[in-house]
């Protein structure tokens, strides 16, 4: 009887996910290649339309030396642009589902409800769905990058949660590559990921008193290398030199304002929900935060704080930090449910509210495009 009820609820969650996926795909179809997509559809060095992989390579060399360090995400962007709009729309939809799956993986919660909640939270808490997931340049920089960044985080936190666990198959081979592209993704998540990896190593060495596997050192080192590439690329300095110089006080005021706007406006729903869930978890029900939870919390703060060095902090740039907050929210809420502190009814209603806002958020983006 209980099994039948669970099956019925899972069907409802899957239906909810399918509705969101359909709306999301429809949004992708309605948003064509726009703005930077058109520029990246050309060979940046020669201004000719992209025709081959060598054009992409040449573009990214130019990009690295003249525009900025994000060659991994922009190289991927150019490859997807070459495949056409339908391919990009399908890829973006699949990757958003994959992202929700990876959020559940990092949160260590493998249930249909957790997946449903993660997927819905990505849309309902998103400060700008269109520019971070539907606009192809935004997708490559934020949706795609956050997917492999969280994968990197999962590999390390997996070890933290269970220090004696066996390593993943062939990890020595692929972790340098994953570390490199994680560090090389963007200027705030890359360095924050490196610091998370360092925290994991320090925790395992000092508190868990475990021998650190070599792959952890390799992954961390390559993440640092990637971060160095993205921050120290010559292109960043060329761009900075083109920006009009402002006085120190003006710069400080603008940075404070941009950090306030990101933290208290774009990230406000994510931060407030996470803060409340944390208070409930630790103070109401006296549950202890695991080391992985604390590391994720520090990671979220670092990824936000790193942006103080950036002259601009647009709403779409909060996507990575938002996903880290979602990991924590899903992990803690699912814990409370499994320990029977929160009733199933309450979690279902909360999840339904989040889903409703996810649908509304996507429809808000769609409405001006179809009206």
């Amino acid at each position, binding site marked *: 009887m209980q099994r039948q009820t669970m099956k019925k609820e899972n069907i409802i969650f899957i239906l909810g996910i399918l509705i969101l996926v359909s709306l999301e795909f429809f949004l992708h179809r309605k948003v064509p290649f726009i703005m930077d997509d058109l520029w990246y559809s050309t060979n940046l060095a020669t201004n000719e339309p992209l025709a081959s992989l060598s054009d992409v390579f040449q573009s990214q060399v130019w990009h690295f030396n003249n525009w900025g360090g994000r060659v991994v995400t922009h190289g991927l962007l150019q490859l997807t642009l070459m495949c056409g709009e339908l391919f990009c729309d399908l890829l973006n939809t699949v990757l958003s589902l994959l992202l929700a799956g990876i959020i559940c993986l990092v949160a260590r919660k493998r249930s249909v409800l957790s997946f449903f909640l993660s997927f819905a939270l990505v849309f*309902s808490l998103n400060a700008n769905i269109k520019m971070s997931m539907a606009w192809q340049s935004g997708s490559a920089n934020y949706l795609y990058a956050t997917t492999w960044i969280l994968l990197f985080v999962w590999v390390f936190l997996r070890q933290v949660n269970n220090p004696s666990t066996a390593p993943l198959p062939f990890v020595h081979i692929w972790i340098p590559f994953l570390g490199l592209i994680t560090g090389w993704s963007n200027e705030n998540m890359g360095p924050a990921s490196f610091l998370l990896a360092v925290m994991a190593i320090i925790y395992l060495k000092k508190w868990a008193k475990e021998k650190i596997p070599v792959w952890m050192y390799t992954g961390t080192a390559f993440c640092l290398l990637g971060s160095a590439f993205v921050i120290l690329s010559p292109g960043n300095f060329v761009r900075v030199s083109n920006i009009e110089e402002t006085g120190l006080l003006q710069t400080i005021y603008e940075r404070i*304002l941009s950090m*306030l*706007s990101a*933290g*208290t*406006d774009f990230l*406000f*729903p994510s*931060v*407030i*929900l996470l*803060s*409340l*869930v944390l*208070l*409930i978890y*630790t*103070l*109401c029900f006296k549950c202890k935060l695991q080391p992985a939870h604390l590391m994720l919390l520090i990671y979220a703060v670092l990824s936000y704080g790193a942006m103080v060095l950036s002259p601009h902090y647009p709403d779409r740039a909060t996507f990575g930090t938002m996903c880290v907050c979602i990991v924590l929210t899903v992990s803690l809420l699912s814990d409370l449910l499994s320990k029977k*502190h*929160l*009733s199933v009814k*309450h979690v279902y*209603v*909360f999840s339904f*509210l*989040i889903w409703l*806002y996810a649908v*509304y958020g996507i*429809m*808000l983006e769609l*409405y001006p495009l179809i*009206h």
Partner: protein
Amino acid sequence: MKTHKFDFYKFIILPLIVCAALALSFYALHDLQTAEGAGLYLSLLSGQSDRTFCDILTDILGMLLFIIVLLLPCLVTRNLSVESFCRFFAAYLAFMPVVHPGEVVHIVEHLTHFVLRDSIVTFDILQLLFFDCEPLFRLLQTLLPFTFLLYAICRIKVQSKKQIPWGLPACIALFATAYLLFSNLGYLTLFVTVYLLLFLCYLLWEVLLKELPAFNKWSRILFLIFLLRGIYRILMLISTSHV
């Protein structure tokens, strides 16, 4: 002999924060009302050539009304502690829609009749949901799930269920429905809907604090975030309306 430790936080920090927030709010109110011409409108109505007196009067009246609206929950619940007031103040600044003095001076005219929204008359559900009601949904985006979680915890943790107010949600639903239906009452009903929801959160929070006093210390971080958001919103308001 028992020595009472001076509560620096309660008697110095909190009053300073309240004064600073009120001063900033007054500055924003002054900028907004002069830019929107609320004082000018009142001076024209009263036949005065110089708007200065009406501007000052509008500023004073506006602040008085603002303080009354802030104090109301504390007065109703007879909870006159500075900390409780600060909590509601911070939440008000973070969540409430901006009160435009230009709209307030015309409020009486709006109450004389009811005008159904065009989207309801023409059965344009899409326009109703994604254009007309967008302000309400945006404001409730964080507040609604937050309120629900708070309510769920109160249901579990609070011993006496009588402490949880049941009538308020019905009033909130009523005003939200009025917002959906009537375009001329949109501004007023939006304000009242969100205010009542905030009042409900305030009541739930105070009830929870009584049951779990340990909640108070760490929850200050939450209210600090509310206050920072409020400061950001005020700065944005000043930057657009300051002449």
